[in-house]
């Protein structure tokens, strides 16, 4: 056997050239894949590949809920109880708020933040309490939500809390390009935080300024986390998704009152099933003077303001 360097094809020069090309190629691949390292918002491949909410089978939903519990435990060090509460049969939720009684104490705002695991910093709040001049107007542009007197109510003002009106004809649902938000059978408009792409069209479409966007990763002190969570409700959100009031699905779909109703010291907030003729909201809509905010837009809210006098 003759030793023919030309046939073997491997000289020192060709070895160096080949290895240089190879390492350059590997470096190029690594550089090309580098953006994947920033895909940190998806904690797992399962999350990235999760199916649309309405297409999930019960078994798949179970796996998704377990995965979310794992994620929350990893991030906050506490294991929550995440459930997928479904609408109840024969139930349509309606909210009524007594403008005669509301004193603007903002307890509802902070009870909502605590119940629904909203970001504390940057601050996200679903309820905005407007101090309105008592001159017969309902022009929300005249409202002030930064009032900070020593004591409320102030003379010459009334207070109008505004939150998601859970419209029967919701403009926010129509503009969503990926169907990440929809209206459920009990009237609650929900958001799938895993499907939302964060385009904020819904925020622009909402005439009640009800939707909030997570510009950064939300921060919640782990000891203040509400561990009773629902998939479409108060489970922790991530950067880049929308959120809004969902009538506390984790409470109301289990038969309880929303947190804002329970905390209201003046009893201004009323909630119930409009299909039940004996519920307090049925009584209010039958017997009280009722006002619908921006009724001219045809959004048909399920949120009514009423008066005692």
């Amino acid at each position, binding site marked *: 056997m003759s030793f023919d360097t030309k046939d073997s*094809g491997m000289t020192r020069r060709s070895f160096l050239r080949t290895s240089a090309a190879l390492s350059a190629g590997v470096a190029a691949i690594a550089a090309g894949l580098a953006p994947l390292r920033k895909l940190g918002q998806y904690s797992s491949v399962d999350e990235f590949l999760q199916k649309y909410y309405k297409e999930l089978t019960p078994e798949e939903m179970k796996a998704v809920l377990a995965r979310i519990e794992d994620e929350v435990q990893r991030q906050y060090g506490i294991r929550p109880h995440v459930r997928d509460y479904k609408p109840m049969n024969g139930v349509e939720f309606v909210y009524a708020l007594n403008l005669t009684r509301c004193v603007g104490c903002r307890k509802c705002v*902070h*009870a909502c933040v605590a119940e629904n695991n909203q970001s504390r910093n940057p601050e996200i709040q679903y309820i905005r309490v407007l101090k309105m001049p008592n001159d017969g107007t309902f022009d929300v542009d005249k409202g002030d939500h930064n009032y900070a007197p020593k004591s409320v109510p102030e003379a010459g003002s009334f207070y109008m809390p505004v939150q998601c009106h859970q419209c029967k004809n919701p403009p926010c649902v129509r503009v969503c390009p990926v169907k990440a938000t929809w209206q459920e059978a009990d009237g609650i408009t929900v958001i799938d935080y895993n499907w939302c792409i964060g385009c904020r069209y819904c925020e622009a479409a909402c005439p009640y300024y009800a939707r909030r966007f997570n510009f950064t990763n939300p*921060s*919640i002190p*782990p000891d203040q986390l509400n561990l009773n969570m629902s998939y479409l409700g108060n489970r922790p959100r991530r950067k880049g998704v929308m959120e809004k009031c969902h009538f506390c699905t984790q409470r109301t779909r289990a038969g309880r*009152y929303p947190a804002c109703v329970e*905390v*209201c010291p003046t009893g201004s907030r009323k909630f119930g099933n409009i299909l039940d003729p004996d519920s307090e909201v049925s*009584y209010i809509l039958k017997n009280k003077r009722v006002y619908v905010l921006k009724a001219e837009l045809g959004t048909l809210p399920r949120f009514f303001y009423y008066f005692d006098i």
Partner: protein
Amino acid sequence: MNPNPNTSIVLAALTVGFLALAFSFARVPARPGLVSRPPLVPREALAITPGTVRISAAQLVSSGGDVSGLDCYACHHKDSPPEVKFDAEHRIILPKEHADLIISMRNCAECHPPNDPVKLDYDASGNVIVPAAHRGLLAMAHGHTLRNNNCYNCHDRDQLDQLHTPEGVALKFDQATLLCASCHGTTYRDWLAGAHGRTNGYWDRKAGPIKREECASCHDPHAPAFTGLIPMPGPHLLHPLHQQNPGPTKGPDDHEL
């Protein structure tokens, strides 16, 4: 196997390359941990409490024994204070005599037994002169213009542990809601339907109990109008110009009688 050295070199280089790739992925930093910040709103401020400190002894014990807003010395003398006992969890142990006592505005008969009736003095216009011992305890402010400030409009002259309606129907203290209803009929109608007053618990009557508050749980019968609450902080102001307006400062207690 082909002993071609080219193949070995390429395989070795690929191995090294993938190891380098794996190493670079392994070095992906974990998610940044949460920055711990002080809570913006104290949790205590969110506690579900009625609008005033009217509370029965049974509720008091179940609430953890917060007596900061109550005035025990309205009946007890400061010179000989009652001995307060606490259980292992630092909750106050209330004596049996207090079990059904409404603690902020007292049942007259607790201090004035029926066999020792009180003599009332009236001023020239016929209003009751509040005795010195009661000043600051009973703020008589029932009604906006015409003060409903004659004790015996509601209390029974002969039996101080009883109430009576203007029509003369005798009522026990725990039936005070019916006494209120004898004048405030429309509000009572709303309350019965659930449209007035606080409602806690379950909207779905099949799922669980509903908790209603009676009139005197929130309103002081002697001064039923609310005096005002300290508002909780508003939304954060991002623009520094607006931050010159400071938020509400902490007051002693926003539940004034």
